[in-house]
């Protein structure tokens, strides 16, 4: 009886997720083989450009999972999650910047190019430590996590909810956008951080490094998914859904709702930061436009299109919308924004639970019949 309950909860209920994990493993095996195992010109060869593109999508998928965790499960529509992604990206970018050393245009071994250009004499204090990979990796987690903690603590304790919370998350990412645009901030201003040479001693231009980065992103996505699935299928996950559906009830049965919200918000921000850190070495640049409110809204659209509250739905949405974006911005650039807007309208009107919701609705209908 009890074991059946757990098997149902932990494995049986997540068919879609298991399919997704299986496909991810296949992809992680196939891509390196197709890229490295077949010579250029062979019909089976996968170009490095494509590998990096898929790697980028995978980072987006992890970001989408992070948003689904707070939006789909806890009902907190954050329209500023791009900020956590960008902060993780900047932390990684700072490490990559320090790795350039004296190979920059100005050949200054102490300072990144943009600081030399701005006539800065010494490294600002907040750049210290970023020449160490472990420190940068720690910051990838710590900076988004800390910001989410402070922001969440203030917002949730004041019981800011619903559309008001969405608006202040937009304000948060917009404020960071403006701040990072300023040269005085010391993060490269408008141009951001770029011209990266290598990571942990491996050249970022080589195919092998690219494939490695791709594989690690895939691994991060898989682990991120498993961690998120563990969270949402735990009792804590059920409390979080309870908060989404009946916040007062949850409070009156003795849960400190604010703490739960802050916790899930911080976990989500950390996942977003990690996604950003894998994104930057693959695309080779991080600049303030990553903080743009539009990015965060697009992210919400990915999750809405894929389907909220399933985790793998967010992945499906991120992949589909981004593939469509790559296609449209190549083939019909002027149409893309209309297509994106149209997609959002269609999903809101006809598919409130997204693409995945359509499929799982049929399945849960069947399960309920069996249960009764």
């Amino acid at each position, binding site marked *: 009886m009890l074991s059946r309950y757990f098997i149902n909860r932990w494995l049986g209920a997540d068919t879609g997720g298991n399919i997704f994990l299986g496909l991810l493993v296949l992809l992680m095996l196939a891509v390196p083989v197709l890229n490295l195992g077949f010579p250029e010109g062979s019909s089976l060869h996968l170009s490095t450009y494509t590998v990096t593109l898929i790697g980028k999508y995978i980072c987006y998928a992890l970001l989408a999972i992070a948003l689904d965790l707070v939006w789909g499960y806890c009902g907190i529509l954050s329209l500023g999650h791009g900020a956590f992604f960008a902060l993780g990206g900047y932390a990684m970018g700072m490490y990559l910047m320090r790795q350039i050393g004296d190979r920059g245009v100005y050949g200054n071994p102490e300072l990144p190019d943009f600081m030399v250009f701005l006539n800065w004499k010494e490294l600002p204090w907040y750049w210290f430590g970023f020449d160490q990979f472990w420190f940068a990796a720690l910051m990838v987690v710590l900076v988004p996590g800390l910001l989410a903690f402070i922001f969440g603590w203030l917002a949730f304790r004041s019981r800011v909810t619903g559309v008001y919370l969405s608006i202040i998350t937009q304000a948060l990412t917009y404020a960071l956008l403006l701040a990072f645009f300023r040269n005085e901030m010391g993060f490269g201003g408008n141009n951001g951080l770029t011209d990266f040479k290598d990571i942990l001693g491996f050249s970022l231009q080589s195919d092998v490094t690219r494939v490695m980065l791709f594989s690690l992103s895939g691994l991060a996505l898989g682990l991120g998914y498993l961690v998120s699935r563990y969270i949402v299928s735990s009792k804590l996950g*059920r409390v979080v*859904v309870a908060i989404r559906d009946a916040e007062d009830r949850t409070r*009156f049965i003795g849960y*400190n709702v604010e703490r739960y919200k802050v916790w899930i918000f911080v976990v989500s921000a950390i996942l977003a930061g990690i996604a950003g850190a894998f994104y930057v070495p693959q695309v080779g640049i991080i600049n303030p436009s990553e903080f743009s409110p539009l990015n965060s809204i697009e992210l919400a659209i990915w999750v809405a299109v894929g389907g909220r509250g399933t985790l793998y739905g967010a992945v499906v949405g991120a992949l589909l919308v981004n593939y469509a974006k790559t296609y449209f911005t190549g083939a019909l650039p002027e149409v893309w924004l209309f297509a994106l807007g149209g997609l959002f309208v269609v999903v809101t009107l006809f598919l409130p639970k997204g693409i995945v919701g359509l499929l799982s609705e049929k399945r849960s209908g069947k399960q309920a019949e069996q249960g*009764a």
Partner: protein
Amino acid sequence: MNSLEKIRGAMRRDHVFEFIEHGHYPFSGLRHTVTPGEIDVSHGTILYVENVNVSFDGFKALNDLTLYINDGELRCIIGPNGAGKTTMMDVITGKTRPDNGRVYFGQTMDLTRMTEYEIASAGIGRKFQKPTIFPDHTVFQNLELAMQANKLVWPTLFAKLDASQVERIEQNLELIGLQAQKNQRAARLSHGQKQWLEIGMLLMQNPRLLLVDEPVAGMTHQEMDRTAELLNRLAGKHSVVVVEHDMDFVRSIARTVTVLHEGHVLAEGSMEEVQNDPRVIEVYLGH
């Protein structure tokens, strides 16, 4: 001991051990051992509401309200719309802070200084007017979430149900008569079943005091009888306060009835006494 020493003894401010000799100071928390998480009902009273005032924008929702609930009692509170019944529950559960007055749970717990979840963990369960359950969870999971447990974040993440906890949930399912619906999503329950589920959730908290707001609103007569039976079974083990409009229902469960009017207690006594009170007839029953 001469009288001077007696006076000195009484004046001593560092005299901290006096609470050991339980004096008759019913409303002073200082005279009792304060054990965290333990409700001191040594005077037979579980809830003290004294001289409580609440006003919203000049409107006095509660006007010098004083009310005592005995341990193990089943009390019905009636009153016309706007009499302050729901506000009273909000004050007790920490949702609304009173402008002044005292609200104590047992001798020692000052509810006006505690947050909602602290009050809930201390042992006060509340049922809302509208049935409020977790629609996306199964009936079983609804009860599991409500169950008395460590409700901090990390322990909840790693929480596993043990056999005795499953048994407790099963017992509760039986009590509220929802065994057959155990694995159904709560959203699919009927209105009456949702009300019972919510009462079941309160019971899982293992509360000392249950506040039940209009439990039979929108119920059929059959469902009403079942609810009355359920509430009657709870009294004794728990103290139950029921706010209700339906007079037939109140008559079927009430032992003591308190009538609220304009945020104040108008009358208190058995149903019969209350019904024959001319003031009550005028404001409420007469209509």
